[in-house]
Every structure is written in structure tokens, then in C-alpha cells.
């Protein structure tokens, strides 16, 4: 049975935003730290490091999850998507990101990467999500700046714009 020793680093490979990445991690390394310090993808933020704030939320095999409550060795072979994977091109924002900009869905931006990942997945998997459903998804995120009103506004605007796109 494969046993990864605490004293060494081990190869971890997975798919990050569609491209293969790999690096070395001790068993105790959190996915959030692996992304930020080994891969160098610092879009994912770290607030509380025990699952409460939601800043570290990334998509793991299609579902939003906490990178700080996941070990890097647990996601070997997985599909990971982070805030860096949302924009269609380096010089273009996604519809959701665009709406966040227009509706002031962020101030300091610390909570934003996690919130964008959650909302991106929600609007993709449940395009007709009701307002309470959007609120429920957002309840897994703390924002100390906006008071959430502008985040809701941005989310609803994005939902509408994305809906029009698929109708057309």
C-alpha cells in the first residue's frame, strides 16, 4: 500500500485550469499552499485556514470546495479550477467578472476569488438559480467590505446577461 512519508516531499500532479501542473509536497501541505507557493498561482486567497471564510474556494472536480481543507496529495489526478481560469483570455474578463466590476461587487478584493469560483459554478450548473439559492451559496463566504448587496447585484446581473447569451 503506498505510504507517503511525512519526512519527504512527494510528486503531486493534477490539472489546473485545463493545463497539467505538478510539484512536490509534504503530505501535510494544504492545496491552498500548494497552489500559491509551489505552482505560484496566487489568485486563490487564504483567510482563516479552517474552512470558515471561503476565500480559498476553488473548484475540485466540478464542485466548489475549500482549498484550505484539502491536502495537495488528495487531489492527485483531479481537475482543479481557480479564479485564474475564469477569464476567457488574458485581456478579457468573464461575464461574471465584468458584472462584479460594473456593480462594485468588490472593494479590497480579498474575498473575491472564492466568491467568483462559487458563483461561476452555480450559474453554470443552475442557470435559473433563485435569489435565495444565490444567497445560500454566498453564505459560505465572508466579505468584510461590501455588505454583500453589491455582490448580489453583480450576481443577478451576470445571471441575466448569461441567460440572454444562451437564448440568442
Amino acid at each position, binding site marked *: *500500500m*503506498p*505510504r*507517503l*512519508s*511525512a*519526512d519527504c516531499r512527494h510528486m503531486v500532479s493534477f490539472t489546473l485550469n485545463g493545463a497539467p501542473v505538478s510539484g512536490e509536497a*509534504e*503530505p*501535510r501541505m*494544504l492545496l491552498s*499552499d500548494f497552489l500559491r507557493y509551489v505552482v505560484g498561482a496566487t489568485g486563490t486567497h487564504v483567510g482563516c*485556514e*479552517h*474552512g470558515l471564510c*471561503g476565500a480559498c*474556494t476553488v473548484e*475540485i472536480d466540478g*464542485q*466548489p*470546495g*475549500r482549498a*484550505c*481543507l*484539502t*491536502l495537495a*496529495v*488528495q487531489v492527485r489526478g483531479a481537475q482543479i479550477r481557480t479564479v485564474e481560469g475564469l477569464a476567457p483570455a488574458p485581456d478579457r474578463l468573464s461575464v461574471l467578472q465584468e458584472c462584479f466590476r460594473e456593480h462594485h461587487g468588490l472593494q479590497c478584493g480579498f474575498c473575491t476569488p472564492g466568491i467568483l469560483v*462559487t458563483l461561476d459554478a452555480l450559474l453554470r450548473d443552475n442557470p435559473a438559480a433563485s435569489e435565495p439559492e444565490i444567497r*445560500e*451559496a454566498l*453564505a*459560505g463566504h465572508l466579505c468584510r467590505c461590501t455588505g454583500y448587496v453589491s455582490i448580489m447585484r453583480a450576481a443577478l446581473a451576470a445571471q441575466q446577461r448569461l441567460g440572454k447569451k444562451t437564448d440568442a
Partner: protein
Amino acid sequence: MKPARFDYVAAASAEEALEALAQEGGNARILAGGQSLLPMLNMRLARPTVLIDIMGVDEWRAVDRDGDVLRIGAAVRQVALEQDPDLARFQPLLAAALPWVGHPQTRSRGTVCGSIAHADPSAELPLVLVALGGTVHLRSRRRKRVLSAQNFFTGMMSTAREDDELIEAIALPKARTRTGYAFREVARRHGDFAIVACAAVVNGVRAQLAVGGVADRPALCELPAPGAAGLDEALDDFAWSLEARDDLHATARYRRELVRRLGRTTLEEAVRCRA
């Protein structure tokens, strides 16, 4: 806020996991979804020397609904049940309580059995297990045994599980006819642990109320059904029997009041939902 060092074993079969657990005993922790364990590791409230990851064990990934119980394997994530359109028909109490467990972002990874193993006194899933009179299926290399929910939980985050045992599955009775189920919870914010959570099962004149968040483990009480005489007194006795304490989140008095009021509302809702 980083875990202390540990070895990591990815078990590919039940035998492998049990073998590793037999060797390591109390130094090991089982890793499933990690949504209760990782916070403990990050805060160094737990310092196991080895983690045994069981998510690769196929036989523990199944939800078995043959017969009159719903058997949920150790590697079944909360989201898998939540997304099952038939769950409310098979077990309405579980369906009602699941959305209260953590957040969508933790239910996507957290397992049902993991929450049971963690045995937080204000967690929803242990409460559901107690309310329904479910069973915990423990397994070690030596033996298998089945404990009732009430014998399994022994105190604040402590259970009757021995060091070389793991929870292989839990089983919940399926919805019975002419029985109503309801779940209610009061928390500061949705997704927080409950200040008081109530789960009611009402069948004819038989009413049962389980309460979480007050005592050191979920508590169960048989009460007169709503409409029958003596419910208020019985609820009051039950509230006092839980020996509530003041803490950061609420006073003991507030908790007792919630048991009386939320308890009644939950029982009444169960009566209305009776199939």
C-alpha cells in the same frame, strides 16, 4: 494554522485501510472528506502521525437502499445525497437536515459518516441519526459490530469507537407510513453550527424529539404528541434535563427557551407532514 507532520496512506481497499488502522491504532486518523478533520489538523487540535485516506475504497462509496434501511457508506459525500431527487421520499428528515450542514462548499467534500465520527454536539447529522434511531456500523480487522446511535455517542466529540475501528457505514430507517418528520434549527448565520437544532418524528400518539446543540451529545425524548395534554410540561422538563450552559453563542436560559419553543414548532410541523 498548518497541520503538524503526518504520513499519508491512500487505502485502495477496506482490508488495506483496516490493516493500516490495526497497526497504527490511536496514532492514526481516518481521512474521508476532511471537512471536520482538516480544521482540527490546521489548528493542531489533532496531531495524528498518520492519515488513512479511505476515499479510494469502492465498497464504501455505495448508498444501499434495499430493504427498509438506507445504508450510507463511509466514503459517501453529503452532496451525493443532497442531489438525490428521491432522498426526500426515502428519508425526509435527512433531506430536511442536509442543507443545514455546513455550506455547499463543504458538503461538496464532506462525508455523512465523517460528520458522525466527529460527533460534534451541535452538528446536524449526528442529531438525525439519533432522532431516527439509526445504527453505526463499525469495523476493524478483528470484528464488525453495530451500535445504536445512542450507544455510539458517549459525550462531547467522543464516541464508542475503538482505536482500531472505523465507521464503515451508517444505516437509517426509511420513511415509515403515517409518520411525520421535521427539522428546525436556530443559528446565528445559516451554515454556522446550531445554537439549538430539533428533529421530530411523530407517529400517531407517539412523538419523539431529538435536540442538538445543548447537551454534550444529541438528546432524545419521548413526548406527548401535539394536541395531547402535558406537552408543554414535558418540553420544559426535557429542556431542563439537558443541563444547558452559557457560552459565547448563547445563554443556558436562551437555549432552554429554544428547546421549548422550537421543539413545539418542530413537532407541530412533523404532524402536518405526516404521510
